[in-house]
């Protein structure tokens, strides 16, 4: 078998390429498995889980903005137990690395959720301390270095899976949060989750979303996300997975040049489901053209 220039290792897990479907944009893989070759992906990050599941938010949930979208889904999910019993094995059968994303409303929720996930055959646990759409918890844990470090330390102590902490771009001092998570034992970091944004319906003179604020994602945020990934990569020595508005193989290369080991792609999958596969093909073609034997050679050279 010929050498794969896209292969990498992330927290002891072998990925065939650095392209991962981002949490909240790919369900648990079922919907897209019907329509594309999901086996070609490097990894799939499942929909954000909470201990007991959630019906999500009422009112409008998605709203398109310029080259971007706002969402206020509110972590609608079937709960950790359902995931362990009904989704994890299916995700494993698809082929790509399996990442479970865990959110929480309280520290106890995170810990009980992480404990239950010890029963699941997953490769990585992505700790979501950055969802802007749930009132109690979520992003509240990821804004300050102290709370982020505390929840990271406690989950790390009980989880048997490598722990990747997903950071919020809404933190006042993102690199401080990143360093705190590294010191608390995180095996990797992923960033950025969505930016807190807002939409107003002029006709009704009201906010579009019941929660008033919502999470902004999509190509419009890419330069902001790239800058933040670069800053965090300069601040920590654990692997970083970059995301935020990636729309092409070139964007993925930019993230990797900035220091990301791997990338997650989310909103563009909604717009054009083949984007993930086009990025993988584009990375392969670029490595061949640039005579790069492994893409990781360029990781963080900027």
């Amino acid at each position, binding site marked *: 078998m010929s050498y794969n220039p896209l292969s990498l290792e992330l927290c002891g897990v072998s990925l065939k390429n650095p392209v991962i479907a981002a949490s909240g944009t790919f369900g648990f893989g079922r919907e897209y498995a019907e329509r594309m070759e999901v086996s070609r992906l490097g990894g799939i990050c499942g929909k954000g889980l909470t201990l007991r599941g959630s019906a999500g938010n009422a009112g409008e949930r998605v709203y398109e903005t310029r080259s971007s979208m706002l969402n206020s889904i509110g972590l609608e999910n079937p709960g950790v137990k359902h995931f362990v019993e009904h989704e994890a094995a299916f995700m494993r059968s698809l082929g790509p690395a399996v990442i479970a994303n865990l959110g929480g409303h309280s520290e106890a929720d995170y810990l009980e959720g992480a404990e239950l996930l010890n029963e699941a055959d997953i490769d990585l646990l992505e700790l979501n301390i950055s969802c802007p759409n749930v009132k109690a918890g979520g992003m509240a844990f990821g804004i300050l270095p102290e709370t982020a470090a505390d929840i990271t330390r406690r989950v790390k102590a009980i989880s048997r899976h490598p722990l990747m902490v997903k950071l919020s771009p809404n933190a006042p001092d993102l690199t401080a949060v990143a360093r705190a998570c590294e010191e608390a034992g995180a095996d990797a970091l992923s960033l950025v989750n969505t930016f807190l944004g807002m939409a107003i319906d002029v006709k009704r003179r009201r906010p579009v979303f019941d929660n008033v604020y919502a999470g902004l994602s999509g*190509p419009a945020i890419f330069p902001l996300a790239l800058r933040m990934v670069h800053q965090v990569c300069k601040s920590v020595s654990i692997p970083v997975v970059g995301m935020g508005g990636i729309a092409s193989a070139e964007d993925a290369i930019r993230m990797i040049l900035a220091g990301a080991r791997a990338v997650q792609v989310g909103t563009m999958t*909604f717009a054009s489901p083949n984007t993930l596969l086009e990025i993988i093909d584009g990375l392969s073609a670029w490595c061949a053209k640039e005579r790069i034997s492994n893409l990781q050679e360029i990781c963080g050279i900027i």
Partner: protein
Amino acid sequence: MAVIRSNHRIAAGVYRMTVSGVPLGRAGQFFMLRVSGVLDPLLGRPISIFGADAGTGETTFVYQTPGRGTALFADLLPGQAIDAQGPYGNGFPLESGGAVILGGGIGVAPLHQLAKELRASDPKRRIDVFLGFREEAYCVADFEQLSDSVTVSVGGIVTNDVDFSENAVYYACGPAPMLHTAAEQARAANARFFVSLEKHMACGVGACLGCTCETTNGRKRVCKDGPVFEYSEVQHVL
């Protein structure tokens, strides 16, 4: 990738587009249409199937241009490509017996393919069509070819024309107030009644959970579990 065969205006702000190169869908299903490579507007627009022609392999859409996304579709010319993902969604069930079809505004689009399938599945069945428009009627002749009667109301309340106590199955697509009134009449008459819902969605395949609605059978995704529901299942969201 679909190729546009024709694309022209049929009423104020309403267009009819025929494409080739996509799998044929069923009545009530939809495609996510998007101008290829454009990032603003970013997301596809869910556009239902007006006609799926097994003979030519072509699919026809009738769409409105309320915003920038759909306005870009109107500028596309025959021969140009359009990104068409689908067909998505469950589609209308073809129940036996007579059918009453109730459409409001651009909601008439999926009902045309429905009338076609109902006629093809049972050429003898009776099909009565009621179409309501705010200012200008369109597609009326298309329905006349497929049904026993077409009643058109412009600027009125189309549900006033419909008797829900006939021995028939009722189907509707249109603005929320119309569906709400129709559902109340259907409940009073204990009619079998299917509605096609519309909600903002990002992906169209059931992944984003942007179009979730509470039903009597739990949470359902309008794009994947719908858009067609039995009215009683979704009555409180109508």
